[in-house]
């Protein structure tokens, strides 16, 4: 750098500004990796337990649901708490891609568990066929939902909708397996629920993004269940009382 009376090209404050922001970004990313690694491990565990719904008859489902809640969902909630506390100090949308998928996976596990009759509490016992609403998801995770007025950690509508497409996928698989396990009532129930949700998804005006691709896939979930119902009705296997659902 030439030494003359003119001011220097670069004010040292610029260098400091860039350096400190870069270092902060590195620190934040490291901490987020740390938290999400643990969180994803917990979610995998929960998903692993959840996969047993496809081989567990309805009569024995309650103990499995409690296990999913205690050993899968509960530990993940504490990680969400930690994540929420840490992430709220930084711009939400700068970093949310780091955990958005995890949130979606966890919420999906919660939705399936609740639909099967889990996730009950004192004020509202679990019951089969219940869709956990986004407000309830927020209460269980103890984080805000769909924030627009302050820059803090929260669960977005998009994450919840994506989790609902996971729910329809999982239930479409269960519709088949519950026939194998001899619970045709469950299949019929899934069929009517999935159709209701499908009707809801069709109300959304979607742009060409991840949400559209995933919501588009819901019709295949519906078809999968309808095929099962068709097979059953063809052979008069659907219980009388539920016939109108086919």
């Amino acid at each position, binding site marked *: 750098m030439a030494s003359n009376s003119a001011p220097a*090209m670069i004010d040292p404050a610029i260098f400091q500004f860039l350096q400190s922001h870069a270092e902060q970004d590195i620190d934040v990313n490291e901490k987020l990796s740390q938290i999400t690694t643990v969180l994803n491990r917990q979610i995998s565990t929960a998903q692993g337990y959840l996969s047993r719904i496809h081989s567990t008859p309805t009569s024995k489902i309650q103990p499995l649901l409690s296990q999913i809640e205690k050993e899968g969902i509960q530990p993940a909630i504490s990680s969400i708490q930690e994540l929420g506390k840490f992430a709220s100090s930084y711009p939400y949308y700068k970093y949310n891609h780091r955990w958005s998928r995890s949130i979606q996976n966890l919420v999906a596990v919660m939705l399936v568990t609740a639909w099967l009759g889990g996730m009950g509490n004192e004020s509202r016992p679990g019951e089969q066929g219940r869709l956990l609403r986004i407000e309830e998801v927020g209460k269980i995770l103890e984080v805000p939902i769909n924030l627009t007025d302050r820059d803090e950690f929260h669960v977005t509508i998009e994450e919840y909708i994506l989790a609902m497409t996971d729910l329809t996928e999982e239930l479409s698989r269960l519709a088949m397996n519950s026939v194998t396990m001899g619970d045709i009532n469950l299949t019929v129930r899934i069929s009517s629920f999935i159709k209701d949700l499908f009707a*809801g998804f069709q*109300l959304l005006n979607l742009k060409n993004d991840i949400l559209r691709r995933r919501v588009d896939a819901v019709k295949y979930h519906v078809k999968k269940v309808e095929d099962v119902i068709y097979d059953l009705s063809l052979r008069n296997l659907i219980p009388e009382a539920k016939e109108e659902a086919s």
Partner: protein
Amino acid sequence: MAAAEVVVPQIRDDSMAGVKRDYKGNRKEGNPGLPKDVVRNEYTSMFESFRDSLDEHHDRRQKIGKVSRDVTALSKKIIFSLQRVRKLNEPIPQNISSEIEKRTKEIKELLSTIEDDVAGLRRYQYSMPGIEEFVEAVSFAHYLETQTLITPEQMQAALGDDVKIPITPADYVFGLFDLTGEMMRFATAVTALSGAMPSGFMGEEGDNGRTILEDLQETASMLQIVPPISSKGWKDKKGVMIEQVRKVERVGYGVRVRGNERPKGVGYDFDVGEETAPVMD
């Protein structure tokens, strides 16, 4: 007669296509955007509220995207004008500066229309590449006038008190990466025309001040030392910047070795690339 009414086109106040009609041809009331036969179930209202939120989000993104593109176009025009400047560390000529002022005012007006849309947590929700382009334009003007690199505070101040949109560290630093490209173009063009590398005290014998090549080298080395502030595109931008510095180094070598052998205004036999012309959208 009823059949004739169907085939004869009717001129109506509302010629909008797709109006729903009952079997007698009377217009049906209600929101035409919604299918009339939606059977409501216990989830319908939930999905309707999601739809409203998503619509709002998409509309906002579209609005911001449009402003951002306009800001980009205006910023490029500013840069284009600035490339007509021939002297470093001197006030920008009146005709050019008044043009820049006009465009800057337009940019501020555009940005102020989306102030609320990018307030708070939304600042990082929607991408606004136009801001980066604006940083490039403002920092280039600042460099030409003062031969110093604009600070983040000065950059924010350039937006004025009326536009309350924060310029993020990433906007700032990516704007600086782009600035090195403009410095390269300026350096090669002015050197080719004047036969000397632009510097702060052109025309005086003896101490000629810092040259733009030195400034470029210093800026580039700073941006190489600093770790990435945003991982998105950092590596590419850094690579391009390093190449730009090399080009100006070759220009600097060229004028030192052969500079006096050529009449001014004659180009050099090395390739400074098609990038010497500012890119217009």
